[in-house]
């Protein structure tokens, strides 16, 4: 069994964790809908919020790329706020119109927003009520993606956590099974399923499943492996169902993928030779793919603005596998337990900055003049115009980057801005 890593304190693992408060430049949790609504093929996300919420999602979604998306906003207006219209009746009416229009929907998420939270609109009761009236065709769940409570990828966490109480119960006598948690690209999921099968682990399930009625069962014999570093509430909800976490770094880069798979192999007592045989081809291909980019990235100085909570694993990958130097690793939140293995792997003296004070951080970035800055969409062009190379981080969530066969693609994402700069003569 894999020993649980001790909680690292700042001195223990040689990483300097700073906390900063002030203006933040990050998306709210509603943004997760942009990829979740493609991941679960028969789910629909209805934000209950303001025009700002609707505008945010369509702007963040690569700006209106889907002509018929599986998300929408029920925009609260002054009649609702003044009590002229009963908000629950209004919500029922909107959901009715929606279901009529999209009979293919099997799972409907009511997604709370800043305004719905501030006025304390009880969406959990609304979800119960609507679930009853729409049963058995449609299940209705709710979670909050509000910006006063969630940052960017925490929206996925809240969404998956809302699924957990509804997951089928695994019988007590069931054999141990592995649950991989966190939305992954379908191609990555399929690759992992193949590797686990090679290792002899046939009963591997994924949360979220691609369809609403295929969500995995969970119980006391479920061991779960997080595929994403931002799933605090989901993990807690799974623990409440009796599932136990397999501590591991995250499957980014060849090393991260090997350690992640290794943790599962150890938990299920996979024979080392068997593990070796199952992972050798992938490791070899990843090694080859990464070699193309190492020369380009080695020695480059990297600055992370806080965005997706993927920053720490990405920083680990870039420093250990690509030889980059980490100037500052900003992250909106740091889950110290889930990231314990990652933090241990960071070079001594790495500065991890939790939270944000935007203008101060921009000052630090300008002063440091990093070779590559990883930041949100709003900051990329302004920093480019000041002469810094940037990689906008939302692409890291819209691209398959996990696993052996994507390790090269991940490195390439960081190389491309640097290569581009060398090509352009204008």
């Amino acid at each position: 069994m894999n020993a649980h890593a001790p909680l690292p304190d700042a001195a223990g693992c040689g990483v300097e964790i700073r906390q900063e408060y002030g203006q933040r430049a990050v998306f709210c949790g509603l943004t997760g809908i942009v990829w979740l609504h493609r991941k679960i093929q028969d789910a629909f996300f209805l934000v209950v919020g303001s025009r700002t919420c609707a505008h945010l999602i369509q702007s963040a979604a690569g700006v209106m790329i889907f002509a018929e998306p599986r998300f929408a906003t029920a925009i609260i207006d002054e009649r609702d706020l003044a009590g002229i219209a009963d908000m629950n009746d209004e919500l029922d009416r909107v959901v009715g119109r929606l279901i009529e229009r999209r009979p293919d929907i099997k799972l409907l998420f009511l997604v709370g927003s800043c305004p719905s939270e501030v006025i304390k609109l009880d969406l959990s009761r609304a979800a119960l009520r609507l679930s009853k009236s729409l049963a058995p065709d449609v299940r209705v769940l709710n979670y909050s993606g509000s910006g006063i409570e969630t940052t960017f990828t925490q929206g996925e966490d809240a969404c998956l956590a809302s699924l957990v109480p509804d997951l089928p119960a695994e019988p007590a006598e069931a054999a141990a099974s592995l649950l991989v948690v966190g939305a992954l690209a379908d191609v990555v999921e399929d690759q992992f399923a193949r590797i686990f099968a090679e290792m002899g682990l046939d009963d591997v399930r994924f949360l979220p499943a691609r369809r609403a009625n295929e969500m995995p069962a969970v119980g006391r014999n479920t061991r779960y492996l997080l595929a994403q570093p931002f799933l605090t509430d989901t993990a807690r909800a799974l623990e409440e169902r009796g599932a136990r976490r397999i501590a591991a770094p995250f499957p980014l880069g060849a090393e991260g993928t090997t350690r992640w798979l290794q943790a599962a192999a150890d938990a299920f007592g996979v024979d080392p030779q068997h593990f070796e045989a199952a992972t050798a081809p992938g490791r070899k291909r990843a090694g080859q793919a990464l070699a193309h980019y190492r020369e380009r990235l080695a020695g480059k100085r990297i600055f992370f603005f806080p965005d997706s909570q993927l920053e720490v694993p990405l920083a680990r990958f870039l420093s250990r596998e690509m030889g980059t130097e980490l100037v500052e690793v900003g992250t909106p939140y740091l889950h110290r337990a889930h990231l314990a293995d990652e933090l241990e792997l960071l070079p001594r003296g790495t500065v991890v900055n939790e939270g944000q004070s935007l203008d101060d951080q921009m000052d630090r970035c300008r002063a440091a003049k990093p070779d590559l800055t990883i930041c949100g969409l709003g900051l990329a062009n302004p920093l480019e115009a000041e002469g810094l190379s940037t990689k906008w981080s939302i692409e890291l969530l819209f691209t398959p980057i996990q696993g052996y066969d994507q390790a090269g693609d991940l490195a390439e994402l960081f190389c491309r801005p640097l290569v581009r700069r060398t090509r352009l003569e204008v």
Partner: protein
Amino acid sequence: MQLTVWTYEGPPHIGAMRIATAMKGLHYVLHAPQGDTYADLLFTMIERRDARPPVTYTTFQAQDLGRDTAEIFKNAVAKAYERFQPQAMIVGASCTAELIQDDPGGLAKALALPIPVIPLELPAYQKKENWGASETFYRLVRALANQPVERAPRENRRPICNILGPTALGFRHRDDIVEIRKLLGALGIDVNVVAPMGATPADLGTLSAADFNVVMYPEIAKAAAQYLEKTHKQPFVDIVPIGVKATERFVEAVAKLAGVDPAPVLAGAPSRLPWYSRSVDSTYLTGKRVFIFGDATHALSAARIAATELGFKVVGLGTYSREFAREIRAEAAEHGIEALISDDYLDVEAAIQAAQPELVLGTQMERHIAKRLGVPCAVISAPIHVQDFPARHSPQMGFEGANVLFDTWVHPLMMGLEEHLLGMFREDPEFHDGVAPSHLGGKPRESADAVEQATAAPPLAPSPAPPIPASITIDGPAPWAADAEKELRKIPFFVRGKARANTERFARERELAIITVETLYDAKAHFGR
């Protein structure tokens, strides 16, 4: 509550940001949670601006709600002043902060900063982006341009005007200004201030030095122009110079206010559009069915140009700008149609399906609808995407703007001869109505039949039922004979749905038991094209 798939306008504070970002030396402190910072990317990604908008967000969190969000706001204002040293500030709340009622105006005032601090009341649950832009600009002008500036007597000097309306994130505002300046320069008129784009708060203080104002976009600048007219006796021109005829009217109106002769500017052939439209190659444009939707300024202009400068037939006209519903309704009546006043994307989609257009002139949203239906489309109005901020000069206004419109609207269409050949040889395997125009790649279109299917299928959104004369019994349409159905396929796809509907109506009115090839042609003769 309104079910919204896509929204045409952002909330009103986005309008305020468009004003602040267009100006220099102005800073906006917005009481808002962290998610609202997405708005930066509208400017830095979509418009490719090279600097962050001059906006500080308080980004309060749930844990702050029980404590003192007002204190967070005051700190943000104080720090923003210290860091950015603006000439003036605007302060306000986004939708969430509006609910917690912290009174940003009062809090900012309490700081007693040595610059003008202008509070904005932008009710987020009632109003939208364009209103927010208009209100913000009006408040700024009122606060900063309330003192008269001595105007020199008109004799022995060139006339002077202000240009009002262009903002950040505006549809071709950047290029329209160039054309307006060109026209004014040719008339011998000097420009005092262009605002908000490029103006400082100090510049706004000198607005009253001009003899008159030019309002480029009434949605944004008319309220401010009305204030200036009342306060400083500055008349204004709000003819929107989009299209040849509108540009001529604009030049004449401006010349009249300035007391100059418009003839030299109008002489010759300042735009190529009239000759391009008259040249015989354009004959095939005659009566093309066009559906127009956008903001009021652009939709109105487009309807007039489509009908009178390109010879199209306007089969649909609408706007999401409710403030200008009256003007749009009046224009629609000129074309014998009912205007669509709605900001509901689903209504617009249904209206386009029902109108069976051959060309859609709309926003980014209508581009999606048109793509799905397989109908050509050109974008004429915000909301827009990154590709609608082209690198090249691409104005909508003035004589050059008219040239751009001709190219932009005609380009997506099938060329004249190609369309004829399609009509003649309907069974050619490579060259049929399932392919896009050959100059646009000619790849098979996934949804060549979408228009027809869309009409045949029950409408996705509630849409007004087609008008059926009361005297007719409403039975299902008569069945189609197989050969009639086959013959229908020979009609170009973009009018096939219309042909089907007309034939069925014809059969119903005559109580025919079955639709034959004969019925199809009888109906064609009866209704004409």
